[in-house]
């Protein structure tokens, strides 16, 4: 029986008013502006854009403010907003070879053409708390060097030239889109990559780590990690040609794995690929490892039964908005459901007690 119950409106209004007050925090402390979040908590903004699957730093910063710093709640706000936007079309695939790199490192070739460019990295910091930041600290200008003004070649192209690395198969120019059609399995690699790039960073990291620890062993080298800005081009029907409609900061990771060969493939290197909005290298490396693990079937490898090889397990649990929606719904009223469970337990208990009484009487 469905029982409609009303009530709680006043309590909800009061809860939301208190939420707003708590969000603001102590009023003797200056309010945080969206511009401050965008400029100074940029990596949080990046994560919300990547998992919200919408590149708009202003909106992501607003969502972080509204969500009181709860990044999954902020991602939820962005996903909800995204659904209200008309889709103008799809871009020409971004050419990451033309990236204006802030950072570009290779763990496989020391003397890679274009060099090892560290960029604004946390690497090599000592991870000691910097108490100067707790005071108002003046920041010295970052030093400037001389740029050669040349784009950096992809490291993988060198292996490719020697034919030592597996070729990336081609696919349709208009890829399938999991925001438009429900994800069905088996998924194409395009769908897997879309799912991974918007998946929860913690989940993808955990899956990637599991492959390193031996669940579907695939020892990966980071052939290249690059972070920077790429122009986004789109064909404009009313113009009849493609124009740049903006630019996005992305992190790209290409991993290379040794591969002994299989029934169908000669011994060669294989590849994993990660591409994520913003400066998100932990996510991009994780994505590349999980991408590679999920390719076992196409490469004729054995299914070791590892979680990271299980497409259904990975893809159906990577999305933190789907997960949090289902997880958190159990805190909402289930009074009637629970009432029936309570009735059932009471009846089972009565029946059990009656049986016991009957047995005792018989003895």
């Amino acid at each position: 029986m469905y029982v409609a119950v009303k009530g709680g409106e006043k309590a909800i209004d009061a809860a939301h008013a208190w939420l707003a007050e708590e969000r603001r925090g102590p009023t003797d402390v200056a309010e945080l502006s969206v511009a401050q979040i965008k400029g100074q908590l940029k990596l949080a903004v990046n994560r919300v854009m990547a998992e919200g699957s919408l590149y708009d730093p202003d909106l992501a910063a607003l969502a972080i403010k509204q969500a009181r710093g709860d990044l999954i709640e902020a991602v939820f706000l962005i996903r909800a907003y995204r659904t209200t936007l008309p889709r103008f079309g799809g871009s020409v695939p971004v050419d990451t070879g033309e990236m204006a790199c802030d950072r570009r490192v290779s763990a496989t070739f020391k003397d890679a053409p274009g060099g090892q460019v560290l960029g604004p990295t946390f690497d090599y910091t000592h991870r000691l708390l910097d108490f100067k930041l707790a005071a108002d600290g003046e920041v010295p200008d970052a030093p400037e060097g001389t740029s050669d003004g040349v784009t950096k070649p992809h490291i993988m192209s060198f292996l490719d030239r020697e034919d030592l690395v597996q070729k990336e198969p081609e696919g349709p120019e208009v890829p399938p889109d999991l925001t438009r059609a429900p994800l069905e399995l088996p998924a194409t690699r395009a769908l897997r990559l879309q799912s991974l790039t918007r998946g929860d960073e913690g989940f993808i990291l955990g899956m990637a780590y599991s492959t390193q620890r031996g669940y579907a062993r695939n020892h990966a080298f980071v052939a290249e990690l690059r972070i920077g800005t790429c122009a986004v081009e789109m064909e404009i029907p009313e113009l009849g040609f493609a124009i740049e409609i903006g630019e996005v900061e992305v992190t790209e990771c290409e991993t290379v794995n040794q591969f002994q060969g299989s029934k169908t493939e000669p011994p060669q290197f294989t590849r994993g690929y990660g591409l994520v909005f913003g400066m998100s290298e932990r996510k991009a490396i994780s994505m590349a490892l999980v991408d590679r693990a999920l390719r076992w079937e196409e490469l004729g490898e054995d299914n070791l039964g590892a979680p990271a090889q299980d497409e259904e397990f990975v893809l159906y649990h990577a999305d933190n908005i789907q997960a949090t929606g289902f997880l958190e719904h159990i805190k909402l009223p289930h009074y009637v459901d629970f009432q029936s469970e309570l009735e059932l337990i009471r009846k089972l208990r009565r029946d059990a007690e009656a049986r016991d009484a009957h047995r005792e009487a018989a003895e």
Partner: protein
Amino acid sequence: MAMTDTTQSARKAWLGTLAKAPAAEMARLWQGAGYAPEYEVLRAPEIGAVMVRGRAGAAGAAFNLGEMTVTRCSVRLVTGEVGHGYVQGRGKGHALQAALTDALMQSPDAAEDVTTRIIAPLAQQAHAERSTRAAKAAATKVDFFTIARGED
């Protein structure tokens, strides 16, 4: 109106500059230029999304990376030129100014002035910003050197 390859590549370049310009900078330059062309709106400024794509392994099959916000707008000047603005983000004023600028750039009388007052300053700023970042990146380039060789 047939467009030659040269004018198409020039138009492509200025539309890209307008799309990537910061909205506040576009507004400042537009107001500073003081243009007041008569026009009709063919498509009112509209905020939407474009699905940004990448390629597996940077070279293989295309996949959907995620969307970005874009605002578009189309106008026709009374003199006949049709301008289109496609700009990054959610700036209705930005899209309208970009469409008007695109239309004015097609008018032989205005193009030179618009280039000087709007397109060139925006392109220079973008170039300067890019150069500064490239210079900072260059300063973080590792210079490897050998400390000692084992055979000595």
